[in-house]
């Protein structure tokens, strides 16, 4: 009788031990599952963030290029107001140079100006007293094989400039107001 009871007890103990092991196993699996779900969420979130930050970085690079090109244009000796050996005037374009510079730009586009401005469009618009526009440089990215344009975005940078006109015929320099637009293709 005692032996029978002991066998039953051993069986019960074995059963409860197995069950607790099973529960522990399920618990471990659940913890691991949650852990991997969290890791997966993290990976998805990181991937999305990277995707957005890559686009942002690309835009930043284009903006930086636009900034560089604008600075180059603002201090270009072919445009800036000069008077003999005196310091050039900043934020000022000479109208006399502006009226004729397009010819020089076209002539030396591939040899010189492309290295400076790359794929971009530069123009100056007179706001006061006139309203003329001077397109100085325009070089688009080469078209795709099917003939479509290859750029998707044009990043513009604006700068207001004084337009000095020596042809007005007075003793003192006279200045108009205009703006220069530098658009970078990307």
């Amino acid at each position, binding site marked *: 009788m005692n032996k029978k009871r002991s066998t039953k007890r051993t069986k019960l103990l074995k059963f409860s031990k197995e069950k607790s092991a099973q529960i522990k196993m399920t618990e471990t699996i659940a913890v691991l599952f949650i852990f991997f779900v969290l890791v997966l969420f993290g990976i998805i979130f990181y991937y999305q963030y990277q995707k957005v930050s890559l686009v942002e970085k690309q835009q*930043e690079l284009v*903006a*930086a290029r*636009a*900034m560089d090109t604008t600075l180059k244009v603002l201090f270009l000796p072919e445009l800036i107001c000069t008077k003999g050996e005196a310091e050039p005037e*900043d*934020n*000022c374009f000479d109208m006399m140079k502006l009226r004729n510079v397009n010819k020089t730009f076209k002539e030396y586009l591939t040899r010189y100006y492309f290295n400076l401005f790359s794929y971009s469009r530069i123009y100056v618009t007179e*706001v*006061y*007293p006139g309203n003329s526009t001077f397109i100085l440089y325009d070089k688009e990215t080469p078209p795709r094989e099917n003939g479509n344009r290859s750029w998707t975005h044009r990043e513009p*940078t*604006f*700068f*207001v*400039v*004084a337009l000095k006109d020596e042809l007005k015929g*007075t*003793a*003192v320099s*006279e*200045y*108009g*107001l205009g*703006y220069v637009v530098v658009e970078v293709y990307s």
Partner: protein
Amino acid sequence: MILTFKLPRSRRGQTEMIGLVVIVILITLGMLFAAQFALKEKPQKKIFTRKGLSYSTMSTIMKTTVYEDNCKGDFKIKVNPQIGKDLLEDCAGNFDYAPTGYSLYECRNQHSCVFLEEFITGLLNDTLGSWNKHYEFTAVLIQASEDEPTKLFDPPITDSKSGGCQRKERDSSGLFPIHTSAGLVQAELFLCD
């Protein structure tokens, strides 16, 4: 018997320690990630453009020569006035007679202060306004150091949409001082988002 009881207890402690360490690592990673977002640098282009644009606009406006009717005033020689050098100085000198009284220059048959307000508004609208930039143009006359500066344009010249750059992130052109017979005129242009 003592050994069999001690071993699982220490092991459980170890497991809990590992769990804690994992949680601490995860929290640290999360905080680093958040800090990366928070300390992200402001876009360089925006700042450069705002600062450079406000300065270039202001210096250009100050230099601009005005070609309008009756602008030559009492002068017999053929000289067109400049905004900063001539008109702003005239406005400061004859501010007490504005808006309908005497001023040396009477462009568009207006007092120089009235004309300047109208003219600068037009120029800024055609440039900054057309690019959807918000701005505020101010000019004050300081007669004596203890005096309250007199606003030459009150309210300041602003774009029609935003109503100025008060309480906004803004960049200034810097002060453009002009010495006049009436005192020191300080003009400034603010650009904001």
